């Protein structure tokens, strides 16, 4: 998990010292200036726990914290090293999950203290909803971006097979030519959509697309984003694809490893996980809901977990599936 600290001075030595003695080794820590926080939080805050220096003033802290509302951030807290806050509860009213007073700031966190903050924030034990999958190289934040990956290297990723739902019915209603065009348009639509989640449209087949996402969230959580598309299916069908018939989608998530090749050069890839992801999307996924292998279960954010339930086994792996929205 990343720890992001927002303060007036990113070179503040006291904050660096606190961060290094309080958070477990292997935790990425970064201090950013409040002046640039609004600009960089969209990229850095998703998946991170954010602390604000109380020296910024309570109004400024609450204002900056409100920027985290739409980001999939683990939670936020306040570092009040000088005991300046006259009303620490105001932070909690505004959604804070931790408050570090002067004494604790000086001593640093003891064992389990940060876990308590995470538990208060509703983050599951283990620190995150999307912990590294299959122990890929590097931890959170270490994903270098798709263009920087060297072709031929073995990488840990999350796979998502995405397709237009109920294609047989669509074929009857709009004809083959329009359905082909719809598949093309859907693939083009998925490009910016997957990019919002740090993903990429990797391989296309006749019915849909196999997308790749980094092993941990880089932007919006992809399962949450897929859930949004299922919710918005009627609007997308009508406004984006100009369809006069109902539209649905199907999504299948899996996590595993593959040899990286750039899109368009994937013909020679031999990967059990890639095969499984295609099988899962083609045979086990259904219209209007999300199916996930147990390997990718951790990718489901806690906010949606109660909407998923066990869905039997497929090719030796247990599955979970989301509830469908009523039509």
């Amino acid at each position: 998990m990343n720890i992001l600290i927002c303060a007036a001075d990113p070179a503040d030595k006291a904050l660096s010292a606190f961060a290094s003695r309080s958070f477990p080794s292997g935790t990425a820590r970064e201090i950013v200036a409040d002046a640039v926080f609004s600009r960089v939080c969209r990229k850095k805050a998703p998946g991170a726990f954010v602390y604000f220096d109380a020296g910024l003033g309570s109004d400024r802290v609450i204002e900056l914290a409100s920027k985290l509302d739409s980001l999939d951030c683990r939670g936020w807290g306040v570092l009040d090293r000088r005991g300046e806050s006259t009303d620490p509860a105001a932070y909690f009213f505004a959604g804070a999950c931790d408050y570090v007073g002067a004494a604790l700031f000086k001593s640093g966190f003891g064992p389990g203290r940060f876990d308590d903050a995470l538990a208060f924030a509703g983050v599951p034990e283990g620190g995150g909803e999307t912990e590294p999958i299959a122990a890929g190289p590097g931890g959170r934040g270490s994903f270098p971006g798709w263009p920087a990956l060297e072709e031929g290297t073995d990488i840990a990723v999350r796979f998502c097979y995405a397709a237009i739902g109920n294609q047989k019915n669509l074929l009857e209603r709009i004809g083959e030519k329009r359905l082909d065009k719809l598949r093309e348009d859907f693939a083009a639509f998925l490009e910016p959509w997957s990019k919002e989640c740090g993903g990429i449209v990797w391989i296309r087949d006749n019915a849909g697309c196999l997308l790749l996402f980094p092993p941990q969230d880089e932007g919006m959580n992809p399962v949450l984003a897929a859930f949004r598309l299922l919710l918005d299916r009627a609007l997308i069908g009508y406004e984006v694809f100009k369809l006069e018939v109902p539209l649905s989608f199907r999504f299948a998530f899996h996590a595993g490893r593959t040899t990286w090749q750039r899109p368009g050069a994937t013909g020679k890839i031999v990967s059990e996980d890639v095969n499984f992801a295609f099988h899962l999307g083609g045979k086990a996924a259904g219209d209007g809901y999300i199916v996930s292998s147990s390997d990718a279960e951790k990718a489901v954010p806690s906010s949606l977990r109660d909407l998923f339930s066990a869905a039997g086994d497929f090719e030796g792996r247990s599955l979970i599936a989301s509830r469908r929205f009523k039509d």
Partner: protein
Amino acid sequence: MKVRGALSQMLKKSLYESLNADMLERVAQDVIPDYDLRRRTGFPPNIPMQGQTAASRIVDDIVEEDLLLHFVERLAILDKEGFMGRSYRIGGLREIFKAIGAEGFLWDSETGRFMEDPRIRRSQNWGRILHGEELRFSLLRVDVAKNSHIVKVHGETAARGAYDDLRAMIARCAERRSGRVWSWEGDGALAAFLFGHSTTSSVLAGMALLHELFIYNRAYNRIGEPVRVRAAVHTGPIRYLPDIGEILKQETCREVFESESRWTPPDSLSISPAVAGTLDRVILDRFSPSLESGSRALIYSVGLGAG
């Protein structure tokens, strides 16, 4: 709207090359009632007026009265439909549209009107509706259910944070579809739609808002209790006035407020029969008849099937 000299000259040239002085006066009268070209120019009735003189005077008056967009819209109709069975070709209209576009106004082919480019400005009157102008709007009314309970239980600061989020969601859903939030009262809003398929846009904005709230309540809500809304869409004539309080007193507004409070359950969007009649089947099919006796509204809500 600020009119540059180049646009003004382009319009004058187009007019005198396309229409005679009588026809020019007639078009001007569509925009400025009782427009009298001879009185304005001082030309006596017995002296023929050149098209160039008429065009110059009319454009100056139109610009003076801030009616250039309305005048060019009228020219576009004349170019497309003619007048009294006769066709009139307005030369240079494409270039005039381009020059107006450069000033930050887009042509809406659905309504045949210019609207401000939302990438540049987003004003309540779309940068062109005149005070007193009566037009058919579609309205989306949103109200927070159990507002006083939320404030009482969670405190004003926490409630304000959640309502600020809601306000941002409403603005996003409306403005993406060329709507404008006309009023926000702290726990409720009224958004207006005029351009494009305005009723469809307002209904889609209402549906999108319920979807956003569904995700918000699960993933981002910090008060520990879902923010629930009632939303309603209705369409009808409204006289645009600078005082929003005066707009809210008009019948179409009163009807949408009544529809929201009387016929709409929490977490739902209701649409009036006047709105339903304009929707395409694929959207209309998402709505069900209201269960309230005496209501003719149709209702949409987000529902989950069995696990």
